[in-house]
């Protein structure tokens, strides 16, 4: 008997959504619901040339894994995958993927949502904006709304 399958990857290259989803239910009949979240780089109305994503190697993986371990227990997930890219990301490209599988739909929704909220506020990644002319802009500021989103998961 193995526990829920957690897979965490921090990588430069893009990911394959379909393959990650297919892997969740392959060879098993207890998965009834799979929710995926893909976070993409927006072009900010044409003003953004790219994002430069800096991360803390080692801690980035460890922190996402801690979030995932909490999520599989709390929501009774069958499998959970989280992939976060780093380096230069162009508008329209993928930044992050979370895939949660469970027998029932709400657990899969909540699991993926929970992971994103905690990943946003606790995984050591930082975004720097690069203008359309290639010059470095400012660092993206953290949002209070992200802290609020995380805090709604606190149990009473």
């Amino acid at each position: 008997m193995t526990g829920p399958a957690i897979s965490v990857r921090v990588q430069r290259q893009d990911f394959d959504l379909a393959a990650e989803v297919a892997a969740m239910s392959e060879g098993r009949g207890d998965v009834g619901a799979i929710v995926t979240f893909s976070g993409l780089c927006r072009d900010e109305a044409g003003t953004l040339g790219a994002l430069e994503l800096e991360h803390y190697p080692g801690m980035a993986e460890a922190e996402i894994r801690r979030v995932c371990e909490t999520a599989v227990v709390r929501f009774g997930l069958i499998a959970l995958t989280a992939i976060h890219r780093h380096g230069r990301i162009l508008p329209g490209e993928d930044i992050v993927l979370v895939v949660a599988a469970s027998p029932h739909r709400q657990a899969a929704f909540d699991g993926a949502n929970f992971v994103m909220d905690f990943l946003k506020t606790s995984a050591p990644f930082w975004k720097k904006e690069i203008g359309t002319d290639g010059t470095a802009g400012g660092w993206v500021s953290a949002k209070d709304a992200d802290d609020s989103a995380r805090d709604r998961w606190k149990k009473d």
Partner: protein
Amino acid sequence: MSTVRLVYFAWVRERIGKDEEEIALPDSVVTAGDLLNHLKTLGEDYEMALEHENVIRVAINQEHVEHDEPIAGAREIALFPPMTGG
């Protein structure tokens, strides 16, 4: 005196002007907050980087800690701004 490896990220890294360094810590530096205050005495770059002390996040051995956490036993201490991944 003990030595510790410090690593910096994002605008903390840019303002201090280095990715990482080893520094010797006086015995008076007990908590993460003490460390920030000590670093601010090391020059203008540090002062500018750590000016808004309350927004600086600290990780000891790759785990988040509060500023009042003791740093004894730390191999690696990271200082960085609030995270903006995802």
